[in-house]
């Protein structure tokens, strides 16, 4: 299993890698492919940003797989942030026509639990602190 951070590697770049993954790239992927891609990135110490997030079912499976991969002193799990559900947005006519309730079209940030800390979160703002380890 890859290490949670790359700080021990003298050749590693001095910074935190951020992967911004488009909705288009996720579209054709199966649930487990998405989860694998996310967790592989997080295991490497990267911050993974999903343009369109995951469905509730995919989120539930992400939690399950994350739990299976937690290992003392190696990987403590993930920090994941999306905006809380907005009643106004989801109950709008357009939202319902577009399947707003089912859609996971919400920017989602995922990182190693020991490197990302949420400072503030509300319906329109997520503020997080990212460190190298």
């Amino acid at each position, binding site marked *: 299993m890859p290490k949670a951070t790359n700080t021990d590697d003298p050749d590693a770049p001095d910074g935190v890698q951020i992967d911004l993954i488009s909705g288009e790239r996720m579209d054709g992927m199966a649930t487990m492919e998405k989860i694998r891609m996310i967790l592989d990135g997080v295991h490497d110490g990267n911050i993974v940003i999903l343009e369109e997030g995951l469905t509730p079912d995919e989120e539930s499976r992400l*939690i*399950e797989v994350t739990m299976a991969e*937690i290992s003392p002193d190696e990987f403590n*799990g*993930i*920090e994941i942030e*999306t905006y809380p*559900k907005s009643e106004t947005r989801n109950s709008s006519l357009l939202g319902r026509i577009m399947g707003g309730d089912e859609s996971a079209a919400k920017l989602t940030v995922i990182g190693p639990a020991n490197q990302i800390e949420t400072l503030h979160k509300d319906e329109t703002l997520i503020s997080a602190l990212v460190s190298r380890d």
Partner: protein
Amino acid sequence: MGLFTELKDSISRVTDRLFAEEEPKRIGIYGPPNAGKTTLANRIARDWTGDAVGAESHIPHETRRARRKENVEIERNGKSVTIDIVDTPGVTTKVDYEEFTDEMDEDDAIRRSREATEGVAEAMHWLREDVDGVIYVLDSAEDPITQVNTMLIGIIESRDLPVLIFANKIDLDEASVKRIEDAFPQHKTVPLSAKEGENMDEVYANIAEYFG
């Protein structure tokens, strides 16, 4: 005569089954670690059956296996419901064994964290496959807008499961039920203190009404 009696018994068994009451509904008690889920499960089970469900603790992840208390019949205001209470481990996206090393030695802390991760996975599995409704327990003294709460409520809603939100620990000075109502206005919030037994009448009335 023997044949006749056997036939009569057989018919009786079939009719009993046909007209039997509905199967108990499996109600999962979900929420983040340390919200008071087991304290609530024990309170309900003791009030209606006399038995407890499991051990309670101030250390997170005391419940590391889902536990079911079957056939708990709750009656209030002329309504009744028979439920199986499923007390589930607190859901989280991270577990660090060092959180427990103040309370126990390192080996026990590592064992506890491993069991906790298995418990979270088990809780998620129950949610996807095996519960008919959810009581979502929150600590009223904590900020309810966390990722785990947002995700779990989203998962519950996506499965069309009936859900009641229980704002627990209202006996604490810092408790704010309104903060929970504002965070999840789409669901009914019931304030209570499972530990002190406060507002349990309303709790039972809502369970009988909502899941009955």
